[in-house]
């Protein structure tokens, strides 16, 4: 084309990034890659190799080894063998390695970018300007985290060996999010990249060798889902971290249930993008380009549900459609392209089908007027407005460049629409009114809220979700806790405490006191209409308690959810109420001590001690209520990245069987202090401390529904409470070995779980039984990004 012709069309022309050096790297490896185990590449015999290709051209790039169980075994053993030394060399020594990784990746930044784009199909602009810089930043940040670990997190230690499975949408970035914090905290890693996108991980393996990383610290196993299954369920895996779809996440939750593995899940989303009538509309339109057309919409936190205020909807949609027409889609290596290729024909088909199916339920379709290349897996930017909440398009994650939208009338309605989803990952809120923005952000169920911006990430700020978007955070100080556990010496196995036996004759013939369920601030009879006797250590009947069933759980969860305004009350008020609770308990200290003696057969001295400790613990959390502060992260923006500690919501608590009062108090006090409501199943053998306690709740101004007590046999009630889909978290401290059931059934709604894995917790030892671990379990960290500036 001649210059004079360009002067007519004013086209951009082609600006392809060269792939030559990347291809030479593949050639150097004979286009065939082995497994990175124990510090080197291994090519075991008789392995199958699968092809990885460039989705933009459908050309094969290289063959990748499918790991087998023997390889998994080797990698796991190597990780296990190297772990103690890796942890023992200390934070500053580990920091040097992480720093070296960061520096080396910086030196090869463009090679990484091109390899990533070749293998994934994402625009080179994104891999070059976003993915790889974030990767490098992640290693630098975590070099610092390693440096400070010993001084700043002395009470935490590494899990040990971590099994990690990552997705194909941000191959190298997700690997950085997994490996950097794991290594910084002293863990060793066995990681499986996605089948579609192994190349950048294998290039990273070379960097590990170049950095002189001790062998076995990082092991990279390629292959399909079978390899993932093998590593996450391997007995040597102390911790499992997964990023991917909610369906697979749920299977991992079930597969690892009861194996004593810590788990973090970063799953799907259908994140709301809310535009109020006072927003900068042009900027909000541009934000959508970064929200849903970033990485072809193959982003877990993509702003994929658009909610626009009714009054501006027509104007906004018009502007948006005009903007869509300007998007350029094509060769991902072309530097002037906004959207590259979908990862694979299967994904393209899935997007196409979801849109076709969804449109049958209605919706107003607009497809960006962009030219699509003739070959490769491309899908045009798509907007579907007038989609109702009941439609599949509004509910199901499409994982492609498809935005669905609806309108709202009031801020409350915007919140209701935004939260009408099984997911809870991210949100974007557009308004020039800071009052509105800061009111809405806490009301949206999500782990990340962006105000007048979207899809911003940084190593210093935690990222992660709630609900079926998973649990755990990656990035920031908060993310480091996903790769450590308290160094509190909880190693002994728990011994099951059986209820005492005796004859069903009341001990004395005074006025009959009936222990009831305590639900919604009322003492209610158990739904079952059955009670069971509780015997003293001497075999005499000292009371009857209701036999809780699933309906009691249903009622209790309903009551607890209705009481959620507790979380919005001031921390000062919650502290006051907790102090009052402690005060009222102290008035009845003797009675509570005697009850403990009666039930457990403990001596009066130790029973008095238990009551005393219980009061002290309540005071401790009353003290914490207004002091467990959030943080302002040092993210590289002009603005704030606020890490807010929000209540988890409604927490189910199956209490410890020993220490009937102290075990109960140790669990509910932090939960209440942080603003949660609770459904509590008291100690099974010794429930009477709990049923005595509700009278104290009543006199201590605890609002109705904030604490609900359901006495029940743990193994009978565990299914109902674990499977309940309106509970946000479940804690299990009991001695009946129900960890596996709790974890497995929690997969229903992927509620957060905190279980004892059959380990004994000494409730009188404050290093095990109180403090920040309890506060962290009682809070969800929401990162709110607030750029500012006039």
């Amino acid at each position: 084309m001649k210059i004079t012709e360009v002067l007519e069309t004013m086209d951009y022309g082609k600006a392809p990034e060269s792939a030559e050096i990347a291809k030479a790297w593949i050639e150097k490896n004979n286009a065939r890659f082995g497994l990175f185990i124990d510090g080197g590449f291994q090519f075991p015999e008789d392995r199958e190799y699968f092809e990885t290709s460039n989705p933009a051209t459908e050309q094969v790039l290289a063959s990748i080894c499918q790991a087998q169980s023997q390889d998994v075994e080797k990698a796991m053993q190597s990780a296990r063998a190297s772990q103690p030394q890796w942890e023992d060399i200390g934070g500053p020594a580990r920091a040097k390695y992480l720093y070296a990784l960061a520096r080396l990746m910086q030196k090869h930044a463009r090679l990484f970018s091109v390899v990533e784009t070749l293998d994934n199909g994402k625009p080179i602009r994104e891999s070059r300007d976003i993915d790889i810089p974030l990767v490098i930043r992640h290693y630098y940040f975590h070099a610092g985290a390693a440096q400070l670990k010993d001084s700043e997190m002395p009470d935490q230690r590494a899990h040990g060996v971590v099994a990690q499975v990552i997705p194909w949408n941000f191959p190298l970035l997700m690997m950085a999010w997994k490996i950097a914090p794991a290594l910084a905290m002293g863990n060793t890693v066995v990681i499986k990249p996605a089948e579609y996108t192994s190349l950048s991980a294998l290039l990273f393996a070379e960097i590990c060798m170049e950095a002189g990383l001790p062998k076995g610290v990082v092991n990279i196993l390629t292959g399909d889902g079978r390899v993932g299954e093998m590593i996450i369920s391997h007995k040597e895996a102390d911790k499992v971290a997964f990023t991917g779809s909610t369906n697979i996440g749920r299977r991992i939750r079930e597969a690892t249930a009861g194996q004593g593995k810590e788990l973090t899940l970063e799953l799907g989303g259908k994140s709301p993008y809310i535009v109020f009538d006072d927003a900068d509309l042009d900027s909000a339109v541009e934000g959508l380009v970064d929200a849903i057309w970033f990485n072809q919409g193959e982003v877990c936190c993509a702003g994929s549900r658009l909610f626009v205020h009714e009054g501006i909807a027509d104007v906004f949609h018009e502007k948006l459609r005009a903007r869509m027409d300007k998007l350029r889609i094509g060769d991902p290596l072309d530097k002037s392209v906004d959207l590259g290729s979908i990862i694979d024909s299967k994904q393209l088909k899935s997007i196409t089908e979801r849109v076709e199916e969804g449109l049958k339920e209605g919706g107003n379709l607009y497809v960006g007027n962009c030219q699509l290349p003739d070959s490769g897996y491309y899908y045009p930017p798509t907007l579907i407005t007038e989609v109702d909440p009941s439609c599949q398009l509004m509910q199901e994650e499409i994982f492609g460049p498809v935005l669905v939208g609806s309108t709202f009338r009031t801020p409350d309605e915007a919140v209701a629409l935004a939260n009408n989803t099984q997911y809870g990952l991210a949100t974007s809120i557009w308004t020039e009114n800071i009052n509105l923005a800061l009111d809405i952000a806490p009301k949206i169920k999500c782990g990340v809220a962006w105000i007048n911006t979207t899809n911003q990430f940084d190593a210093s700020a935690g990222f992660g979700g709630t609900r079926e978007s998973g649990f755990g955070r990656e990035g920031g100080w908060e993310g480091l806790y996903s790769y450590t556990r308290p160094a509190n010496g909880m190693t002994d196995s728990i011994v099951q405490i059986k209820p005492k036996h005796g004859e069903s004759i009341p001990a004395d013939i005074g006025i009959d006191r009936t222990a009831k369920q305590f639900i919604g601030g009322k003492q209610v009879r158990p739904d079952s209409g059955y009670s069971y006797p509780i015997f003293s250590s001497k075999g005499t009947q000292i009371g009857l308690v209701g036999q809780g069933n699933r309906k009691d759980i249903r009622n209790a969860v309903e009551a607890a959810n209705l009481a959620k305004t507790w979380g919005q009350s001031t921390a000062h008020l919650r502290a006051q109420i907790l102090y009052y609770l402690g005060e009222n308990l102290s008035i009845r200290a003797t009675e509570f001590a005697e009850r403990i003696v009666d039930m457990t057969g403990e001596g009066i001295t130790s029973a008095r001690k238990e009551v005393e400790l219980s009061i002290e613990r309540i005071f401790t959390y009353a003290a914490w209520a207004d002091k467990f502060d959030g943080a302002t992260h040092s993210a590289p923006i002009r603005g704030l990245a606020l890490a807010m500690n929000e209540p988890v919501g409604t927490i189910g608590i199956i209490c410890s069987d020993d220490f009937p009062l102290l075990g109960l108090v140790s669990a509910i006090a932090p939960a209440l202090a942080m603003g949660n409501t609770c459904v509590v199943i008291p100690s099974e053998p010794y429930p009477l401390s709990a049923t005595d306690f509700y009278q104290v709740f009543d006199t201590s101004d605890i609002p109705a529904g904030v604490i609900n007590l359901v006495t029940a046999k743990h193994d009978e009630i565990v299914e109902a409470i674990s499977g309940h889909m309106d509970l946000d978290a479940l804690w299990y401290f009991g001695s009946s070995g129900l960890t596996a059931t709790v974890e497995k059934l929690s997969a229903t709604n992927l509620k957060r779980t905190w279980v004892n894995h059959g380990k004994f917790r000494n409730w009188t030892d404050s290093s095990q039984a109180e403090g920040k671990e309890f506060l962290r379990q009682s809070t969800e960290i929401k990162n709110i990004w607030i750029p500012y500036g006039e």
Partner: protein
Amino acid sequence: MSNSASITRTPIQSSERNPGIEFDIEWALSVQANTSAIERRCNALPGRRSIKKHHQAAWLLKAISCIDLTTLSGDDTENRVRRLCQKAKHPVRKETLIGLGIDPSTIRTGAICVYHEMVEVAVSSLIGSGIPVAAVSTGFPAGLSPFSLRLREIYESVKAGAKEIDIVISRRHVLSQDWKALYEEMKAFREACGTAHIKAILATGELGTLRNVARASRICMMAGADFIKTSTGKEGTNATLPVTLTMIRQIRDYYDLTGFKVGYKPAGGISKAKDAITYLVLMKEELGNRWLEPDLFRFGASSLLGDIERQLEHYLTGHYSASHRHAIG
């Protein structure tokens, strides 16, 4: 050389002029401008579009055709202005243009921009070239001379042959939010211009906020500006990408509202060929190809041309150029 019309399109003729509309305060104030979001768009833009090789050469030639070659110095003399006019007529070395396959007679700058006293000499130097003369006016750069004299200055410049008048608005009207006063002032200036086209200089560096920039842009267009322009070149901060994005989005909204196309002129601080391309890209992305023509887009610049000349020679020869190889203006 066929089809060189697009570079030489006679400035400010092909579109229907913006006659202005009734004062509509509600529309003017309904606009928001979120600085951080606007900056994010601007920061990402250069990485989103890359123009290489002969496309780049074409875009640079387009940029030349959009330059208001400017001299606004106290020491301007007639000879200095004559020299600049020669440069406007022959902005690039002949050999370079021939090498690029371009008819040298088709390449010239968008206009010459001078103070009133230099209008006559500029007009006479440019006779037959088709290059219009623009005069800065209305008490440029501060705009604080008596109102009657500011109008008078416009009349005089038009009488002297200026086809374009770059007026400065009263910043105080923006800062004190006296939008009606701004509208009336602008309307009066427009009337005084008659058939000459009017560019409204907002002096964005003195307006405090992007929101003010957006509102002032809207008011000036409502009052009949043919162009809105960022700066006099004398403020502390001149043309920037965020200011540009803010202003051209108002041009788009005004076009959507009225169907009238208003032009845009960033001025001051744009001295690199690369920056010029970024501005052109922003125009193309936000407003479309129509706004890449000199009747709707100008650079107010003095040293930009030199850098573009060097880049063109580099494209042609494959070697970096030197400024002494190109004629000064």
